[in-house]
């Protein structure tokens, strides 16, 4: 099965074609087709996971074909420890999000077609090792996102959609220029990331820094890193539930993935010199800033959105630590945040579907009416707080334990945010689920089977990775340690680190 | 060239005519007037060609060019007048600024 990656990337496209081919009369089954496509994708992902060799840093399941030889553009796919976990996450989240979409009733065909296209785009980004291919997938994904937010979104959907599109396009054009720079001024003209990485030393320091920053901005917008984060709350608030799930669950990870895949691997020297500022400091700002903004939100979903910003900060901080623990923690955090935040957004969607508003102040005592829902939310909230025994705990601890060795001060803030996080999550929980029951919501149904079906698998994963993180760490460790070594082998920053 | 007439005099003349043509084109409100301005410009060019052809060592290129210019000028005028006529038939004016339904 040496076309596994092509398959896993284009299965959704196949699904999309089928969905589009369906006559309008049979539009009810397109959700099932989408489900089937993502299910197959998930199965392949699991197969990849099982047959992935964790001992080597080499590219696995590689596929390479000429595409545009005159310009050294190839169709090059492959995974290593960094991407395999993301492939798994993408497949999982997309599968879940299809079921989270069942409440969509308007223009289903278009919806599921776009959803599958989005799926393919994201998967493609994680498996492609040719920079050009990577860029194509990177951009292709913007379009379905635009429509999914713009057509099925909330009242201010048009604003949110175009904001997302413009913002991310601005980022990606910078990536495009950086890519061309790497192509022309490298040791050899190529888009093959592995080759580019092996020729890293060829670039001059100044060049590296300029390109690094261009790339960073491009990726930072996706993360989203302060101060490029303002598109996220809008996008989340307007997007339909399933799209928020994908957005927070997978899309944000592409930013940090890109930083590891491109900035770290191809420009190690610049990384070594700039990371403390761009990843460390900004990451720390993300952590604290996100948490504090979340505290002040009155919209349930916006609050969760800001918590995402805060949690992604840990990923950046972990990357900046240049320690095995920190960088492993960072990628693990990418995975864990994916699952946890997916739960959170699904849970927000549950109540929004019933109450059609998200004003935290408007709720109260829901636990009496919807105990199961309240319980599940409690679980997700504590997972979000990084409660020991749950997945996020491991990753945050690894990030901080690693970061402490290089950036103690930042770590102090990062660790302190655990308090703030507990603060806003518990307060929110209290205001929505506890206290006297708001009779307005009498008669609301508890979690439906479908909703439970979307949540329970994620919950189980959260628990398993809490007690057996090795399930994912095992994949990452080899590749990440290797990458970290490469970066550390370059001359470090001239600036004194913030000790 | 001593006191006699030389290339530069022709060039100067053509420059003057060119400028006159430009001015005419820019100030006239009337389509015919503007077309006349264009004619001036073309002829200033013609003077150049002839002068260069005469003083430069080149063959008859310049003269040929000039003849073609004259011819094309006529063709252009024809079309121009046709259009002007059509406009006049339609809206009874040839003041170009009056013909302003465009630019939305």
């Amino acid at each position: 099965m040496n076309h596994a990656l092509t398959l896993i990337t284009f299965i959704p496209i196949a699904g999309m074609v089928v969905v589009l081919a369906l006559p309008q009369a049979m539009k009810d089954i397109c959700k099932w087709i989408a489900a089937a496509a993502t299910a197959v994708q998930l199965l392949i992902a699991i197969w990849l996971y099982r047959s992935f060799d964790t001992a080597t840093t080499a590219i696995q399941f590689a596929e390479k074909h000429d595409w545009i030889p005159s310009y050294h553009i190839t169709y090059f796919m492959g995974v290593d420890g960094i991407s395999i976990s993301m492939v798994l996450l993408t497949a999982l989240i997309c599968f879940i999000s299809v079921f989270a979409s069942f409440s969509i009733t308007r223009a289903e065909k278009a919806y599921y077609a776009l959803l599958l296209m989005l799926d393919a785009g994201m998967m493609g980004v994680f498996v492609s090792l040719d920079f050009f291919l990577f860029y194509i997938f990177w951009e292709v994904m913007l379009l379905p996102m635009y429509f999914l937010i713009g057509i099925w979104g909330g009242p201010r959907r048009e604003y949110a959609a175009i904001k997302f599109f413009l913002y991310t396009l601005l980022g990606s054009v910078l990536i495009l220029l950086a890519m061309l720079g790497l192509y022309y001024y490298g040791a050899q003209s190529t888009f093959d990331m592995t080759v580019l990485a092996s020729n890293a030393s060829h670039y001059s320091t100044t060049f590296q820094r300029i390109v690094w920053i261009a790339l960073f901005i491009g990726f930072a917008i996706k993360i989203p890193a302060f101060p490029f984060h303002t598109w996220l709350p809008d996008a989340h608030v307007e997007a339909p539930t399933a799209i928020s799930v994908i957005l927070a669950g997978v899309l944000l990870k592409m930013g940090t993935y890109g930083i590891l895949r491109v900035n770290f691997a191809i420009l190690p020297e610049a990384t070594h010199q700039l990371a403390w500022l761009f990843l460390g400091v900004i990451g720390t700002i993300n952590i604290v800033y996100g948490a504090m903004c979340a505290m002040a939100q009155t919209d349930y979903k916006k609050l969760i959105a800001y918590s995402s910003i805060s949690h992604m900060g840990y990923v950046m901080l972990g990357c900046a630590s240049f320690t095995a623990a920190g960088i492993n923690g960072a990628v693990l955090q990418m995975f864990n945040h994916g699952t946890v935040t997916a739960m959170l957004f699904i849970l927000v969607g549950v109540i929004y579907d019933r109450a059609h508003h998200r004003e935290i102040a408007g709720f109260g005592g829901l636990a009496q009416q919807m105990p199961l829902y309240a319980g599940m939310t409690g679980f997700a909230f504590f997972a979000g707080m990084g409660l020991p025994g749950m997945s996020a705990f491991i990753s945050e601890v690894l990030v901080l334990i690693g970061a402490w060795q290089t950036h103690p001060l930042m770590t102090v803030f990062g660790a302190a945010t655990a308090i703030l996080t507990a603060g806003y999550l518990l307060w929110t929980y209290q205001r929505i689920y506890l206290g006297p029951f708001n009779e307005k919501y009498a008669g609301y149904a508890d979690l439906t089977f479908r909703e439970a079906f979307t949540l329970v698998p994620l919950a189980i994963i959260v628990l398993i990775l809490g007690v057996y993180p090795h399930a994912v760490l095992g994949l990452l460790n080899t590749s990440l340690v290797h990458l970290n070594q490469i970066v550390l082998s370059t001359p470090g920053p001239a600036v004194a680190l913030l000790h | 060239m001593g006191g006699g007439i030389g290339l530069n005099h022709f060039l100067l003349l053509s420059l003057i005519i060119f400028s006159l043509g430009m001015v005419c084109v820019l100030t006239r409100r009337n389509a015919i007037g503007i077309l006349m301005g264009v004619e001036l410009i073309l002829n200033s060019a013609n003077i150049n060609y002839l002068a260069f052809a005469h003083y430069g060592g080149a063959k008859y290129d310049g003269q040929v060019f000039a003849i073609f210019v004259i011819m094309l000028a006529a063709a252009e005028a024809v079309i121009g007048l046709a259009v002007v006529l059509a406009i006049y038939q339609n809206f009874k004016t040839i003041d170009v600024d009056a013909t302003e339904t465009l630019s939305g």
Partner: protein
Amino acid sequence: MDHPVSITVARYIVLLPLIGATINFLAGSWLQKTFGKRAISFVGCGVVVLAFILAVRTFFAMLAMAPENRFLLDDLWRWIDVGGLNLEVAFWLDPLSMVMTLIITGIGGLIHIYSTGYMHDDESYWRFFGWLNLFTFAMLVLVLGDNLWLMFVGWEGVGLCSFALIGFWYKVLANTTAGNKAFIVNRVGDWAFVIALYSLFMALGNVGHPTLVTREIAKYAPLLAGMPGYLGMTMVTFVTLLMFAGATGKSAQIPLYVWLPDAMAGPTPVSALIHAATMVTAGIYMVARLNFLFSMAPATMTVVAVVGGLTALFAATVGIAQNDIKKVLAYSTVSQLGYMFAAVGVGAYAAGVFHLMTHAFFKACLFLGSGSVIHAMGGEQDMRKMGALRHKMPITFITFLAATLAISGVPPFAGFMSKDEIIWQAFAHGHTVVWALLLIGAAITVFYMFRQVYMTFFGEFRGTHEQEHHLHESPPSMAYVLIVLGALSVVGGLVKIPDFIATYKPFEEFLEPVFASGPTRAVMEAGIHSHSLEAAFGFVTFTMVVLGWLAADFMYRQQTVDPERFSQAFGGVVYEWVLNKYYVDELYDFAVVRPYQASCRALAWIDANIIDGIVNLAAALTVLGAWLSGLFDAYIVDGLVNAASLVTLDVGGRLRRLQTGSINGYLYGILAAVMVILLVRAMLHA
């Protein structure tokens, strides 16, 4: 200690409660509906009792071993293995954790049984037992975890359960607020604690042994001696100080004790189990567990001792003025924890753990007693509405009295054995100040405890008629538990007699191997060893106890002295302060909570209006540019035309147009462009 005996029993002890919790959470409501609350009680209590039985068997097995071999390890699976951080999910059973396990499962089991009676009328009975089981599990993980991260799992796990059980009656907002407070304040402590772990891990890494496994830390800790840390302290001092800071959160010491009194919002069995007997002692356990580390940091030790002593006295004083029967016990708990910290602080680890155990006995007894009182009073907690209950509920009275005597340190009750030891050790190790604090504290303790006894059980009944009519002795499930605990409060201390009476200290000897590290030995050996002196100080302590009792007796039993006279002293100001717990909560609210919330709101505003504004500004600028380019065409280009065409035409609305229709306009445009180009060119070459 380097070659622990491998066992498998620990996992069962730990997992049994987890199984109980799982059953209760997943199937609890169904079980309760179909088989009634019995099923829940059966599962809930069964697992803990079973765990206790296993623990006891293990205990005797351990006794059978040679003291130096009493280190058992139950290794389950590799947990984390990244960047030198190799952690197992493994349980470490040594004398110290053995003692804790016995307390947790034993006292815990009793309280579970008690709860079957106390919570009998609650509709979410299953949820209660689910959380109680889960707590037991978490607590066991805390004490048995063989590495500090696993310990931290339990550490926060018990925090979670505490949060959930404090807010168990979540329909009342205040309860949930108390729960949040507990969790968040604990998180503050945890913040310090995790940073301590980070630094410790890094420090050990720097000496070539990156590890957080307790026994390995014990092995390599000496290498850290003299290593510089942060903020001008040595590494060990830094680490231990932060760890203690963590402990102040979990074990309710100054300055983080504020959550514990509020935690009384939870059901009484919870207060007994979590907020008296077990969870709050985690801090002391942690210090004792890491004694080899603390002993290396005299500075930290002093801090621990002083904070302990201060808390002991401070909380006791607050206890005086409380009228809520549980609040008094809460502050007394804080105070008693202070004693324990003082003990470990001065280096008397064994004494600290010993008091931990006895305290578990009598404080559990006291809480459950008060629970039974509240039960009888129909939820009434204000002592001013009680009185003369001793006739109506004799068992409760007797047991409560026994426990009171114990906590007061009346020989030969359990409390005497441990507390007297602590006070003496404080002096013996030269911490005179601490000694003084503890001594006064002891007197006050007696006072507020007897005040409570008298207000509750003596005098005449001050409640309403239906309350009086409703008064009754608690059901057997509760009564028996009280009896057992009462008995323990009486005899529980006999495992260590003060040296000046007899050298009989099996408890201390049992713990000996845990405190075997060089520095610890040194710290423990230090100080005076004079039985006569100890006896003398014992007498001093006892007189203080008697004084405290007399004061209470005069004021609240004989009522020959009116407490008002004291409360009105200094114009009642002092009383006001004490009554309002020195306004510490208000201070925190004013100094921390409000500013934080305000700054959050400010930040959110900035984010929505300024940061996002910048983005929109960029967009706005683009549009402005478009508009300007419009102006260029409309005014510059077209403007000239109009200047020329004023004579002939109305200039009309053409100014507004982006793209004028004027031909001349275009031509002017070209001309202008050409001119500009030529000018630029000229400049370039000038």
